[in-house]
Structures are given as structure tokens and as C-alpha cells.
């Protein structure tokens, strides 16, 4: 039995990415915690603060000790505050910044789950009160050369994370775009697969939420956003933003939040769908 060790480090986030993972309905969370992900291979979740049994120094020690002894994948949820030496986020007497650099250095590679660790997300929104940076920005600055895979989304769909980690474990090739997002999930614009695309093409635009039509004028960022929400759908295929008659806020993009705010106003289209 091959063990793939995972350390899940929560930095400046809202735990939404963890909860989204708990919502997984294809490969279920019980499989991830207890089962073989692919035959002969299991994930050993050394550290995950929302789920793990222990608390306090005990668990910090385990995280640090194991990280010296073992090969592991580092998963980062949440953003890294850097202003004032990163004092705005700390755990176990260390700043997130210190812990990230330490773990990143020792890891076999990093998966950033969510828009915060991938790109900065909401906490990086203007005026960026705590000087937040993405994981990639920080390790590049510090000269830490590790592979980074970004799984953005606020939160990301559980399949995007689980699909990526399954491919890694099964040693299957993973193709990334220029923002380090797996093309399997972020390969096409929302707009390309949008069920309301016919409305857009015909010029039938909703001007109020009580009207039927394309949501572009109500702020939909689908034409600018790479993700497979329209075909994958959310919470086990129940629904997703545009199916719920809500504009896409473009949460998988670096423009989330400043470039996409105001959320309910149209964003000018230069080119669409290439």
C-alpha cells in the first residue's frame, strides 16, 4: 500500500474550501479520509485543522516533525498576509508566512485550493488591508522552486480538487494553463458551455432578475471566466450560479474581486470565446 502524505495548511481563509470538499458527491469525503483513492494508494491526511482529532502543540509538532521525515504534498487553503511581517495571521506561535515558507521548502509540490491561496481572493481586494499575497507570489519572491497547481474558485468545486489529486496519485499527466490551473477543469469559458448562450447570441438580455434572458447586463462574468460549472454543476449536479438565475461572479479568475466588482454591473467585452 502506497501512502501519499498530505498536509493541509489553513491560512487566511473562511474554511469554505474545506466545506466544499466535504460536499463532494462523486469521490466522497469518507473515501478521501478512509479509503483507497486508486487501487493500492491511500492519502494520509497528516494535518487538517477542521477535521483532525488533536489540538494545540501536539498537532503542530506532528505537522512539523512529519514534514521533515516524509515526502508530502502541501495543500494551502487561504491567503497569506505579509504586511507587518505577516502578524495578521498566526498559528502555533508562528506567522502563516513563516509556516508556508518552511512547509513549501520541504514539500514535493503545492496545491493551492481556492482563489485566496491561488490568487489572493477577497482578502486581497482593494485596499488589501493586510498585504495579502498568493502562495505563488510568495514562493517566487523567496526563490523556493516548487511546482504549484492552482485550484481557484470561491470556493472551488470539490471535483476540481479531487480530480486533480487523483491524477497526481495515479501518475497521469496533468496539463496546466498559464495561471497553473488544470485544463481538465478550467479549459473553457463558462460562456462557451452556457445554457443561456442562445439568449446572448439572439440579444435577449434580462434587465431585471424577474426577467428571463442572458444575465450579461446584470453583471455576468461568464464570458471572462474559465471553469466547467455549466457541465459539471454544483452540489452533486443540483444547481449552479447561472442555472439559479444569478450572474457568474468570475470567482476562478485573478480578477476576483476587484476586476469583477461591481458584481452586478456589465463588464465590457473586447473579445469573446476565441
Amino acid at each position, binding site marked *: 500500500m502506497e501512502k501519499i502524505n498530505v498536509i493541509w495548511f*489553513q491560512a487566511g481563509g473562511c*474554511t469554505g*474550501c474545506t466545506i466544499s470538499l*466535504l460536499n463532494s458527491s462523486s469521490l466522497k469525503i469518507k473515501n478521501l479520509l478512509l479509503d483507497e483513492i486508486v487501487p493500492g494508494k491511500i492519502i494520509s491526511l497528516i494535518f487538517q485543522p477542521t*477535521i483532525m482529532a488533536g489540538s494545540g502543540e501536539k498537532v503542530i509538532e506532528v505537522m512539523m516533525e512529519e514534514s521533515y521525515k516524509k515526502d508530502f504534498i502541501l495543500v494551502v487553503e487561504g491567503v497569506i498576509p505579509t504586511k507587518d511581517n505577516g502578524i495578521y495571521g498566526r498559528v502555533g506561535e508562528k506567522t502563516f508566512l513563516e509556516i508556508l515558507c518552511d512547509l513549501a521548502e520541504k514539500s514535493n509540490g503545492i496545491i493551492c485550493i481556492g482563489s485566496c491561496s491561488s490568487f489572493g481572493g477577497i*482578502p486581497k481586494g482593494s485596499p488589501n*488591508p493586510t498585504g495579502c499575497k498568493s502562495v505563488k507570489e510568495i514562493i517566487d519572491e523567496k526563490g523556493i522552486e516548487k511546482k504549484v497547481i492552482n485550484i481557484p474558485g470561491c470556493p472551488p468545486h470539490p471535483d476540481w480538487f479531487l480530480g486533480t489529486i487523483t491524477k497526481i496519485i495515479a501518475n497521469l499527466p496533468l496539463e496546466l494553463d498559464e495561471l497553473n490551473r488544470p485544463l481538465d477543469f478550467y479549459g473553457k469559458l463558462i460562456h462557451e458551455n452556457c445554457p443561456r448562450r442562445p439568449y446572448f447570441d439572439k440579444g435577449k438580455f434580462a434587465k431585471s432578475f424577474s426577467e428571463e434572458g442572458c444575465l450579461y447586463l446584470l453583471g455576468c462574468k461568464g464570458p471572462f471566466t474559465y471553469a466547467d460549472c455549466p457541465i459539471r454543476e454544483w452540489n452533486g449536479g443540483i444547481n449552479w*450560479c447561472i442555472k439559479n438565475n*444569478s450572474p457568474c461572479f468570475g470567482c476562478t479568475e485573478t480578477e476576483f474581486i476587484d476586476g469583477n466588482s461591481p458584481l452586478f454591473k456589465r463588464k465590457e467585452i473586447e473579445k469573446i470565446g476565441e
Partner: protein
Amino acid sequence: MGKKIIIDPVTRIEGHLKVEVEIENKKVVDAKCRGMLYRGIEKILIGRDPRDATQITQRICGVCPIAHASASTLACESAFGITEKIPQNALLVRNLIHASNHIHNSILHFYHLCLLDFIDVSKVKRNISSEIDLICKFLERDNYSPFIPRDNDFRLPEDVNLRCLHNYIKGLEIRRYAHQLLSIFGGKMPHQCGIIPGGVTQKVDAGKIENAIGKLKDIKEFVELYYFRDLKDIAKFYPEYFEIGSSYGNYLTYGVFPLKENGEIKRFQPSGVVYNMEKFEELNPDKITEHIVNSWYKGEIVNPKFDSPECDIEKEGYSWIKSPRYDNNVFEVGPVARLIVAYMKNKQPWKEEIDNILGEFNIDISKLNSVLGRHIARFIEAKVLINECLNWILKIKPGDDFYIDFEIPENSEGIGFSEGARGAVGHWIGIKNKKISNYQVISPTTWNASPKDKNGNHGAIEKALIGTEIKDEENPVEILRIVRSFDPCLACAVQIIDKKRLKKKDFFIWV
């Protein structure tokens, strides 16, 4: 000075919390709760379109985003002057979204955040159920992460332990159903997109109604049968936790789940204030202030409506959490507060269900002020809300409006009061030139995890810790069980940071 125990991080809660307690003769004599993360979401809101606040503030917390989405939407609607015009259908759909999240939270909190304090994962027998089998195979691989390391105080008999463990796994699935239920109306979860100022985005049709009823039936079965039995057994084998973790007995709730009844908006869980478990008073929002005498801000007392105090790191104090107070008194917020207020107001079906469940546990209502009491309160809420969701669904009138259009005023201000699973959430918004000019959030965990106020009174969690006997200082499960019973949500306490490092380490026991 006694021994100091520091727990950092407290896991299985939302966010980054550090707890320090001082112990003399095995008893906690002083306690401090410190939040460890500051993001400044309120500052990020300044200058934006007011409608963005609903989406941005729900990102304060991925466990209770709906509470912030609701409070923010209500604050906007009060500022826009459209509170009374929101269609009944929209209120019903919002309530379904909101209640699904409270139901999810009850299951998550009991099974996945707390139960590992009581059940022993390593004691299992094969072939009891597929869930237990999964654990057996897991243990045979000699790989116990993330279930070790852990604290030890396991007393459940083998059969009860096995059943609870089975339901820990089963609960993972049932909790997911609650979010699927939410997603039917809210688009996706976490961070729904259905609730917006003016109503909800989506009309509800027969297919959604049928789908939602199906999910509710599955959740109802689990909650009424398994959740209830498991909770009863925890209470049976850990009875002293009816005496441990009591706070002041002062409770405050803003009320939640508004609906129109005969043209008037009423809340299914009513608002109110209770002093010392007995004296009821209607809520008067003007009595809410924030004490900052032990927080690193300039001043002593501020008003959330007008003031956003400047930081002052030179000041004596121990937290960046402000201390919200009502009429200068400390209040606990959360499920117990909501139940006690509903009980005192004779609100049905709450009163009947509370009496019924208290009877099952053979306790009186004062025992809700304890670790087990908070767990029982969450169960009662889940049970009642599941049934009420079934009623709400059938009240939706598919042909009627779900949304109304509105204009954003040039200048205005508004307040939005709602409840997260963990307690009262208040949002204050100021608008100038159609943009947000001021935004303040008082979240439940700032009420519960607040530092000492101007009168020297500890916050609710600190109060609940003080006086507790710690049987084994190397293994202070009592502290963790008390803190977790409040279901603290640190990401919500957006104002908090811990800037001061402790200098002396001579007496520390690292736990």
C-alpha cells in the same frame, strides 16, 4: 501565578483560535480567548456598490455564509427603503436557504467538530456496517491520520461507540444533503448566489419543490432517529457536562426567519433579551455598544452605527476582538439564546418541542446553560427547522413575484439583523453617492469570545471556562469541550488579531 495552559490552535472549529487558561489547584482561575487572523473585510467594502456586500460579506465565513448574506441583504434593503416590499415568496426561499444551513451546521458541529472528543476511533469490530468496515480497513493500514494525535477521555461502551462512529461517517453524507437542499434554492454552496437585495434570483417550480422535500425526508430520518440517540448517549455517559461550561445565563438574539403574517413581518425565531435565565426584555438595538477597554483600539466604548475606532497597539489589553455588550452586560448568543427567548415568548412550535426534549433528557431549562445544553439546543433547532422547511416549501406560490426592482439611494444608512447558527449577526451599512461609505459587522463569536469589558466582566466563553476543574492538565479535554460547545467561528470575528507575543514561557505546558 498558577500554571498556564495554552492551546493553539484549537482545531475542529472555524478559523484560528488560541485559548490560554491559568490553573490553580486544578481549577481554571483565568481565561483568555484570542483570535489569530485579521483580514479587514469591512475595509475592503468601502467605496463598492452596496449590492456587492452580500457576496463579499458571506465570504467572511465558509461555514455560516448565509447569516452574513442575510444580514447584509437586510441592511441594504433597510437602507434602500424596500424592507416591507420584499415578496413573501422571496422571504420563504431565503428562509429555506438559511434554515438548510442551520441544519447542516447542527450535524457538522455535533458529529464532525465535537464527537471525536467522545468516541474512540480505534475501537472497532468488523462487519457491523459498511461504514465501520471502512474504518477497520483504514486502521489495518496502520495509518491513523487525521485521527491521531488526540486527547483521551473515552467512556462509551463498545456498542454505543460503534453506533456513534457509524453515524460519524453516515453524518458526512447527511450533512451534504443539507447543502444540496440549500443549493436547490441558493445555486451553490458554500457561498450561495440566490439571496440578493430585492428578493431572490430564481423562481421556484414544482420540480424544485419535489426535490427539496425528498432531501428533507432523508435528513429528517437521520436527525430524529440517530442524532437524537447518539446525543442522548453522550449525555448519559458524560452527565457532568450538564454542570460544566455555564456562562452568565444572559442571552440575546436578533431573531431569524422573517415572514409576513397579516401584512406584518414576524420572525419564526423571535428576537429578545433574557437576563439571568429569567427576566425577559424586548430587544432595543440602541443598547448595543462595543467595549474596547481591553482591545487595542483608541477609546473605551464605541457605537457600531457611527464609530470605527483607530488601532492603538501601545494600549494595555489582550485582544483585537472588541467586546459587544447590551446595556453594558455580557450576553451569550447562539442556539440556547434563540431557544430560551422563544420559550419565554411562548412561541410555538418551539415551546412544545423544547419541553418535549427537555423531558426526554430529564432536565429543566436552566441546564441548557452548559456544554451538553448547547448540544441539545442545536439538536432541537435542527429538528424543528426540518419540519418548518416542509411547511415553508408548501407556502411558496410559483406564479407570484420572487424579486422586486429598486433604486439605490444617493445617501442612506441601514441595519441588518440576522442569526448565524452560532448566534446574532448584525451588519451596519452607510451609503454615500450610491457607494458604501461605512460598513460594520458584529458577528456571534465577538459576543461569545470577547475579552473583559470596562466593568471587568469576562466574555461568555472565558466565563464558561473559569471555575472548571481540569482533571488532567496534560490532557485538558474539559477546555476543548467547553470551547467547542460554543461552536466558535473565528473568521467571523473579523476585527481580531493577536499582536502581542507572550514573553514569559516558564510555566507553560504545551498541550
